[in-house]
């Protein structure tokens, strides 16, 4: 490294520790993802969804947010985001195994249905895009109360066609609410490719219909996402209203453990995407700027593996919910 080359992450105000933390989060998300796939194919986890290929975009935006101040209404792939917001590897595994200790739902919901008041994660459901108006409502409430925060919500490009997306954007635009609409455009909504899914060139263009800016960013460029995120957040906190950030990523795995993607895309396309995978690209950058060395990388991988192993063992041994508890919490106790 030469002295004249400015370090990109430093320019963005990120320290070496912070970018390493970002990378670690991405690694952990990936490791958990791969472990859960394994366990699913081994017949131990009945159903999982994947974030593989989207960790970079997620880490970028998650680290731009303030996990002590902001609220998130993520969608089911946002594993790296919820990890940044405080969920642990054990939490994720407990959810995968549907154990009673699962903090998201006590084993009531499928994996990927995140929720934790403690970690400012709004509880999500399966009908897509319903969380988008929730984020807007949360931002509205904060505004009424005069509290300074940002509400983040994420969704795929397919979900951005739901009425709730448009209604929510319009509402947020009219009332200039501090919302980050984060669209993870991974090119496939289950099997339907982008061309069949969306009529416009760029999802980001939709924002102009709702009176606020939209920006399309390379989802594999962690720092670019981070920057777009910071800009949007500052705008929002200054009363400038919402931003729609379209992150161009790629869904490396099938939609879920129940999907077979060989039916609708080629292996070559997937392999190409793997080469552009943010995990690969960001690691390369970190090595280049000397934040990651061969030994520190090996150690990091070892730590993450251990963490995943521990989480798996813990969740495997944990108790399933009591059947009678199914009657609880229909209403306030």
């Amino acid at each position, binding site marked *: 490294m030469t002295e004249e080359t400015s370090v990109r992450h430093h320019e963005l105000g990120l320290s070496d520790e912070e970018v390493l933390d970002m990378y670690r989060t991405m690694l952990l998300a990936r490791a958990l993802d791969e472990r859960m796939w394994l366990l699913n194919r081994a017949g131990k986890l009945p159903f999982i969804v994947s974030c593989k290929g989207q960790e970079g975009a997620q880490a970028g935006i998650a680290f731009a947010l303030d996990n002590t101040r902001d609220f998130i209404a993520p969608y089911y792939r946002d594993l790296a985001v919820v990890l940044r917001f405080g969920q642990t590897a054990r939490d994720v595994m407990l959810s995968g195994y549907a154990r009673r200790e699962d903090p998201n739902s006590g084993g009531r919901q499928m994996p990927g249905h995140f929720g934790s008041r403690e970690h400012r994660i*709004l509880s999500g459901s399966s009908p897509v895009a319903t969380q988008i108006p929730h984020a807007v409502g949360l931002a509205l409430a904060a505004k009424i109360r005069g509290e300074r925060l940002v509400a983040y919500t994420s969704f795929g490009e397919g979900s951005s066609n739901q009425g709730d997306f448009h209604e929510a954007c319009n509402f947020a635009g009219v009332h200039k609410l501090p919302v980050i609409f984060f669209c993870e455009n991974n090119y496939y909504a289950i099997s339907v490719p982008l061309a069949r899914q969306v009529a416009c060139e760029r999802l980001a263009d939709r924002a102009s219909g709702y009176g606020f800016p939209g920006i399309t960013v390379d989802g594999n460029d962690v720092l670019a996402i981070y920057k777009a995120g910071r800009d949007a957040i500052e705008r929002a906190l200054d009363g400038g209203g919402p931003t729609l950030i379209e992150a161009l990523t790629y869904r490396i795995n099938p939609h879920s453990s129940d999907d077979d993607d060989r039916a609708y895309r080629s292996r070559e396309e997937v392999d190409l995407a793997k080469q552009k995978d943010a995990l690969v690209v960001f690691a390369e950058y970190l090595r280049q700027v000397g934040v990651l060395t061969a030994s520190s990388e090996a150690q990091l991988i070892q730590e993450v593996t251990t963490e995943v192993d521990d989480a798996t063992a813990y969740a495997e041994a944990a108790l399933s919910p009591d059947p009678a508890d199914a009657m609880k919490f229909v209403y306030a106790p």
Partner: protein
Amino acid sequence: MAIKLYIDAIRDALQYEMRRDESIFVLGEDVGVRGGVFRVTQGLIEEFGEARVIDAPLAESAIVGVAIGAAAYGMRPVAEIQFADFILPAVNQIISEAAKMRYRSNNDWSCPLVIRAPFGGGVHGALYHSQSLEALFYHVPGLKVVIPSTAADAKGLLIAAMRDPDPVLFFEHKGLYRLVKDDVPDGEHVVPIGKAALRREGTDITVITYGLMAHYVLEAVKDLEQEGISAHVLDLRSILPLDRDAIVAAARQTGKVLIVHEDNKTGGVGAEVSAIIAEEALFDLDAPIARLCGPDIPAMPFNAPQEKFYMLSPAKIAEAMRQLAAF
């Protein structure tokens, strides 16, 4: 205590509670500057400001979805759907989200939301401004549904709804807005959700009803008393949860039950009330459980003769009561 119109009692409840609790705000179409198309929210924006009385864009799913997000955060929103007939775009938010928020998060998150919607017909509202939709929602665990028939109950139940930690659908009959006035307590007045009201004690037949029909029933009861028939009248007030104990006790009182509701018959609230009575009071029944309801057509038409055909009336109700008493 003061004699108030049903519509004024609703406004009273909103005003009283909004003064008492800063976390309550109102949002819906035309609720602010216009004061609501029926003028229910008239005066609120002047008193509480546009931050707490929000004229929302024309998008029901967003109105409810945004309210859900605000409720999750800790506010107590009162969302208005302009006509119950238009609640359908918001059903996904109501049933998938509001009703399940507490359950799916294992009591971590909750949704203290009130949704108000005028419903009901007999006002030349035609197919899409007259419907009764309570039967869609009373089937959904996690929701509460209330339908007041008096001004006092309107105030008391709405205050109870605003204080409830779970989502409550408050269906107000638009025909009752200016038709009904009764004594409404000033200030603090809460009617608990889940408790029916015995309007009249009687010995010959039992009539179970709610909404506008509660008034028609009482008119019919007066006529029948001249004929020597004594009716025991229960106003459900709460549709979810139903007051099972009151229903069974009322059925046992006479053994002859007539359920009256404006909504069409099949799958309506009367079906569940019948099932409850059959389950718990079979050996007290002196006649098959009778239901007098709207016909099974999609909605009441605009033209007067057909609207009249659809709508029940005190005369129709009286005739059904006579038949049951004679059985």
